């Protein structure tokens, strides 16, 4: 078999059967071997059973998007097989126990590589080793060095008892040994390349960005898929000098975070759908107090509980219009891990500078996908201190030209810092002076001018000029980019928005050059298209939408773009 550029491996089985461990192990083996790696998972809202799957792509050059194409499929049970069946093509090789998994599926029989998994596992010490044996088989197929495999197994199981580690080494060896018996067309060879990258997922990118942004306090309430950011910061709170507090509910979380910002500690909350709904009163409070806040909102399919562990871009307009009354905000929508890091850091900076709420809007696909990227360039990070030392005459809401009143904090200077959710005087005290009301509204809304100036431009990817411009935002970025690349059509370009509100003033110029516009969104009502229309009057009737709870795949998008671009 000839060398391949890009292989996609799908591992599928019930929750609680070690898929996650196998995924971690494979990713670390592939990385150590010098492959470029991308991994993403889709899973059910349950702890054990059901059918979850992980897709791992390995390649000689960076891969960062979900594909349907499945080169190697490893279903751990019959349910799992049915679950991912739709991804099988004639080129897919399937590894598993023919008898138990596939007997009725004569259709695929010549693609199946029969592995007596149960027996191999039994020999090792029980069913729980199946996942590691599978990893061994794959490592064997890819001709990965045993030393690498062993060192990765050690890394993962080292903390456990020696016996457990030994068993897992045995398991992986057994798998590798077995793969040597395999018919040769299952063998795969691919170029590897050494790099100095780090591998991480979306949750970690946001978490690290928060650290870089000087986050000192996070208060949140667990909610899938937003929890990883809370977990990450909890786990490294000591290292990074921050407090992570699980609040009694989301209302407490957002109000605690506002208290912390008020007192001088940069803070954030991380939440999803319903949790964010509960925070909207606090969001409005931030608007009125002009106390900064950073909100990480990881979207999942709604309404209500919806599909808690799946993905969607359904809360954009809610993030934009959430909270009663009128006040400015910023919404970042990172689509790459680099952007997740950079924009989260920037969110803290802008929140502090403009004293407004800043959103990082992600989704389950973004949070749970990982790949490797060059180490973040920390030299580029500037953390300015916007807090002023107060004196006895200090006025928290001093009326200024640009709407920004210098922000003091209690305990730094001799002044008093009074913030108020009522309409207030410059000193922060409750007022019913209606002329002052008008000045205060103007002051708050005035910031919009600067926010528009500061807005992050969308990335233009592809030919400088094009006939068809595809527009996307957030987590779909890599998928759309790869799909367009595959189309190999010089007349199609991509505009990926990483800030959706406010829109940079150049947006119109960028968009109006193209004859045809196509929008791609992971929702049912084309919410960003609605924003483009209400903000810029741009109409995009050609919409590629998906709202099944899954991310787009590259192939699917390729097809749909081809059709749409006609």
């Amino acid at each position, binding site marked *: 078999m000839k060398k391949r550029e890009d292989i996609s491996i799908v591992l599928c089985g019930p929750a609680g059967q070690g898929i996650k461990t196998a995924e971690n192990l494979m990713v670390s083996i592939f990385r150590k071997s010098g492959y470029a790696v991308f991994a993403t998972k889709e899973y059910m809202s349950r702890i054990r059973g059901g059918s979850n799957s992980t897709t791992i792509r390995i390649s000689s050059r960076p891969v960062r998007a979900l594909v349907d194409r499945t080169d190697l499929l490893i279903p751990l049970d019959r349910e799992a097989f049915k679950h991912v069946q739709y991804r099988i093509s004639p080129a897919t090789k399937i590894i598993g126990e023919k008898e138990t998994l596939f007997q009725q599926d004569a259709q695929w029989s010549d693609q199946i590589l029969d592995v007596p998994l149960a027996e191999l596992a039994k020999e090792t010490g029980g069913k729980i080793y199946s996942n590691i044996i599978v990893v061994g088989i794959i490592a064997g197929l890819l001709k990965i060095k045993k030393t690498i495999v062993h060192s990765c197994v050690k890394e993962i199981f080292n903390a456990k008892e020696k016996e457990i580690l030994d068993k897992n080494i045995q398991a992986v060896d057994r798998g590798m040994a077995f793969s040597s018996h395999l018919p040769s067309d299952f063998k795969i060879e691919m170029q590897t390349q050494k790099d100095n990258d780090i591998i991480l997922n979306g949750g970690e990118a946001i978490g690290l960005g928060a650290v870089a942004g000087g986050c000192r306090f996070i208060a949140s309430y667990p909610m899938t898929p937003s929890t990883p950011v809370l977990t990450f910061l909890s786990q490294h709170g000591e290292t990074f000098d921050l407090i992570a507090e699980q609040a009694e509910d989301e209302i407490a979380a957002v109000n605690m975070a506002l208290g912390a910002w008020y*007192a*001088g500690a940069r803070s954030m909350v991380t939440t999803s759908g319903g949790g964010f709904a509960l925070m909207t009163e606090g969001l409005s409070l931030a608007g009125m107090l002009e106390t900064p806040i950073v909100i990480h909102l990881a979207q999942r399919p709604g309404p209500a509980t919806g599909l808690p562990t799946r993905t969607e871009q359904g809360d954009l307009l809610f993030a934009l219009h959430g909270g009663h009354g009128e006040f400015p905000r910023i919404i970042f929508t990172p689509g790459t891990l680099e952007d997740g890091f950079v924009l989260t850091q920037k969110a803290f900076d802008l929140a502090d500078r403009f004293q407004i709420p800043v959103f990082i809007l992600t989704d389950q696909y973004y949070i749970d996908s990982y790949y490797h990227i060059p180490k973040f360039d920390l030299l580029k990070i500037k953390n300015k201190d916007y807090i002023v030392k107060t004196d006895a005459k200090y006025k928290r809401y001093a009326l200024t030209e640009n709407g920004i009143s210098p922000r003091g904090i209690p*305990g730094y200077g001799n002044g008093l810092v009074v913030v108020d959710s009522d309409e207030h005087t410059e000193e922060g005290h409750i007022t019913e002076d209606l002329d002052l009301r008008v000045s205060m509204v103007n002051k708050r809304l005035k910031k919009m001018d600067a926010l528009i100036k500061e807005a992050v431009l969308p990335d233009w990817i592809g030919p400088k000029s094009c006939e068809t411009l595809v527009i996307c935002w957030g987590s779909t970025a890599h998928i759309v980019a790869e799909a367009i690349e595959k189309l190999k059509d010089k007349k199609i370009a991509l505009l990926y928005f990483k800030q959706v509100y406010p829109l940079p003033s150049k947006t119109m110029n960028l968009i109006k050059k193209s004859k045809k516009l196509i929008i791609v969104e992971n929702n049912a009502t084309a919410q960003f298209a609605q924003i483009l229309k209400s903000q810029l009057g741009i109409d995009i009737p050609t919409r590629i939408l998906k709202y099944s709870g899954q991310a787009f795949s590259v192939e699917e998008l390729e097809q749909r773009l081809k059709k749409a671009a006609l």
Partner: protein
Amino acid sequence: MKKNRYDMGEIDIAWCPGCGNFTIHKVLKETLEELEIRPQDVVICSGIGQAAKIPHYMKCHAFNGLHGRALPPATGIKAANPELVVIAESGDGDMYGEGGNHFIHTIRRNPNITNIVHNNMVYGLTKGQASPTSQHGFVTSVQVNGVILEPFNPIAVAIALNGSFVARTSTTEPEKMKTILKRAIQHSGYALVDVFHPCVSFNKINTFKWFKENTYDLEETYNPENKFEAFKRASETEKLPLGIFYVNPDRIPFEENLTVYKKNKKPMSARRVELNHLKKFINQMGK
């Protein structure tokens, strides 16, 4: 009268003449002054309601937030800067109604703050609906046939939750109120002070006279470290005892339990991001 640093001078106070809020306001200012706490070191967090307007009438830092949400920002403030004296203050509706969940969980969390609740047994600012502490049969524009819900007993609940300091006082005895407020502010950990006060505009039942007649002081010999005795006394309804019901000697304040303050006392608000920690971490990820 001695000059009080918390005085605002000539300001327009939005409370009704004769309202118990004035007493609490006066006593609180005196308490802080007598404890020799600088206004620059005090933050009052409040929610929304008549009681919750109090920070606008005092010269100190203030976070006047949302209805029902005085406790969470107070916790956030204390976590960000444990050197501040933080008071969370609001009405009974605010604290026990809308904010009930924060009430019970803040008692569990035990930040070192003082929680003063102006308990007039009614919603004042919204014009007289029942509050959680309104008594059975209390007639209002919404409870037209009188309150049918069991009155909320904040003292008993706080004791049931192992609250670290649980007290009740009344505007009928300002001097005793001051003593209790002093103890509460000096107490290390969460301190609840429920303060009875008449609402002259909307509560024609629980008047100053009513509070006078229906309360009495816990005896001098009363031992506030006995939880069961405290609960018994808190459950009395014939006449309502005033005083410090319960002090739990075992609770450690929230901030003291936080890892970041275990070795280093510098407030979070004064710490800045150390990019070299981050760099080291990232380098480790790449190994």
